[in-house]
């Protein structure tokens, strides 16, 4: 059986994505349940990341990978040989092994019960900067599935905040939604790497294969939305150019697709239900057009509104702010309420002059694409690293404080 799996992995590696996942699906479909489970447990490194394999088996394999990595690091920390980075990674893996939260259900006797929701991973790569693909919800029964592709500076430590945002998108989209946080690639760490398309070009085929793998496990009538933000939009766009399969696509805060791409028609695969973009006022990343013309300026694009009377957002960091029109529109798109999506009425020239009374986007574009951008990027990366290190201890303080407080007050997590 193990040899058959090795042969399968070798055979499908260079096949077109749809044929590869179909072969993997057929292989596991032919196995008795016990044998498939045994394979997931005896060969987790092979089954865990294998697109087309049943998600339940991959969850099990990736849990074992996580547990083994946790055990190794724990031993290192106990022996006092661990570096600071290894100690941080141990804390990350510990959190990844905890339940994601709780859910209200009804038991067999009709009583309401709160049950633990385990974390589910379709990929765990605990080495280096790390990669992971997390699923919230049930991929097999969901009516709507959204795949969220994070951008620059997301590693295994920092991606946990993405899981929280994904949870909130799922709440906006409503019951019957499954969310996927797809950090299946090595995101650029810093502006210097972010100026290159090396990461997005490497990520595109991985995302394409993931989308095909999704197609064999989801319900036939389930709709898939692919969301890319910032550098994640560059990844999604590159994958779209390679035919990544989804029903709806949403790019927010895009740094551009490619210098040759100037319209939605050039990049939307056949059968696309919606290709939408969001650009808030003053989004310097979109205006800089680091990787090509901003999709928000394409003549044939659907551009969603980001502001409402309650919450106005500005800049690059707020597309998923709570109660913003942007976030509400994301929920509408994911659940297929496309008739309710609100569209931006502002024009590009209006936005470009908004902050300083004169157009600053032109000079920003010139600067972003000039040689001077390299030292500027390096200086920014240095500052960003300082901000992150400075923030690290705060989480423990708050968690400890909150736990102490709750012990006295009563309510439990």
């Amino acid at each position: 059986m193990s040899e058959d799996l090795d042969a399968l992995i070798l055979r499908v590696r260079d096949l077109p994505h749809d044929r590869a996942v179909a072969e993997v699906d057929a292989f596991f479909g032919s196995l008795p349940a016990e044998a498939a489970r045994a394979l997931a447990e005896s060969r987790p490194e092979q089954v865990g990341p294998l697109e087309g394999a049943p998600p339940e088996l991959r969850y099990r394999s990736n849990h074992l990978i996580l547990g083994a990595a946790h055990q190794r690091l724990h031993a290192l920390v106990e022996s006092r040989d661990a570096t600071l980075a290894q100690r941080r990674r141990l804390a990350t893996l510990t959190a990844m092994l905890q339940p994601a939260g709780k859910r209200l259900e009804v038991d067999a006797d009709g009583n309401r019960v709160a049950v633990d929701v385990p974390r589910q991973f379709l990929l765990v790569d605990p080495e280096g900067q790390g990669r992971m693909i997390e699923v919230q919800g049930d991929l097999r029964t969901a009516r709507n599935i959204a795949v969220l592709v994070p951008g620059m500076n997301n590693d295994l430590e920092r991606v946990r905040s993405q899981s929280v945002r994904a949870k909130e998108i799922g709440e906006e989209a409503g019951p019957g939604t499954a969310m996927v946080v797809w950090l299946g690639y090595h995101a650029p760490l810093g502006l210097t790497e972010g100026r290159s398309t090396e990461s997005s070009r490497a990520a595109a085929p991985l995302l394409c294969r993931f989308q095909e793998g999704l197609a064999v496990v989801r319900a036939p009538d389930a709709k898939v939305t692919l969301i890319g933000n910032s550098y994640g939009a560059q990844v999604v766009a590159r994958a779209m150019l390679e035919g990544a399969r989804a029903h709806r696509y949403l790019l927010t805060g895009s740094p551009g697709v490619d210098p040759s791409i100037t319209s939605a028609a050039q990049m939307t695969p056949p059968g696309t239900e919606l290709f939408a973009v969001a650009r808030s006022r003053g989004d310097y990343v979109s205006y800089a057009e680091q990787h090509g013309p901003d999709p928000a300026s394409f003549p044939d694009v659907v551009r969603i509104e980001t502001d409402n009377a309650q919450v106005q957002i500005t800049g690059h960091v707020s597309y998923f702010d709570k109660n913003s029109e942007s976030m509400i529109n994301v929920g509408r798109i994911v659940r297929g309420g496309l008739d309710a999506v609100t569209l931006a009425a502002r024009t590009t020239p209006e936005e470009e002059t908004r902050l300083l009374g004169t157009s600053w986007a032109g000079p920003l574009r010139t600067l972003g694409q000039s040689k001077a951008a390299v030292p500027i990027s390096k200086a920014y990366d240095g500052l960003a690293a300082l901000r992150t290190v400075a923030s690290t201890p705060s989480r423990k303080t708050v968690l400890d404080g909150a736990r102490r407080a709750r012990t006295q007050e009563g309510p439990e997590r």
Partner: protein
Amino acid sequence: MTLTEARDLLRAELLAVAAAAVPGYEGVVTHDVGPVNPAVLSDGSGPDTICSITVENGDPSVTDPAGELAAAVAALTSRGWRTTVAPVENGHHRAAAERDGFQVTVHAWDNEWRLTLSGETPAIPE
């Protein structure tokens, strides 16, 4: 206010409103992972300055999204929150609330007995 105090305040508010919205049932905290980075989707490099908490409540034998949402909004208003109720949209009953930089969203759905209250603290650097 520290982030710890903000987090505890938000939990208490969400639980109180959840209990007021569903007679006879207490709300359950379903998500509360501690501080996260609000700007994470842009570049992930910022500090963890907000807490996001979700509370669910509901009576499995009762499906009354409009009534429960109205009760939640009334409870929020009486506790000093500024509320906005959105028109029902494809079975989605939704209200937003704001107080002192805290944001809350209440979701209820046709054919769904669970009421979801989701809140976020303002950004508070430690």
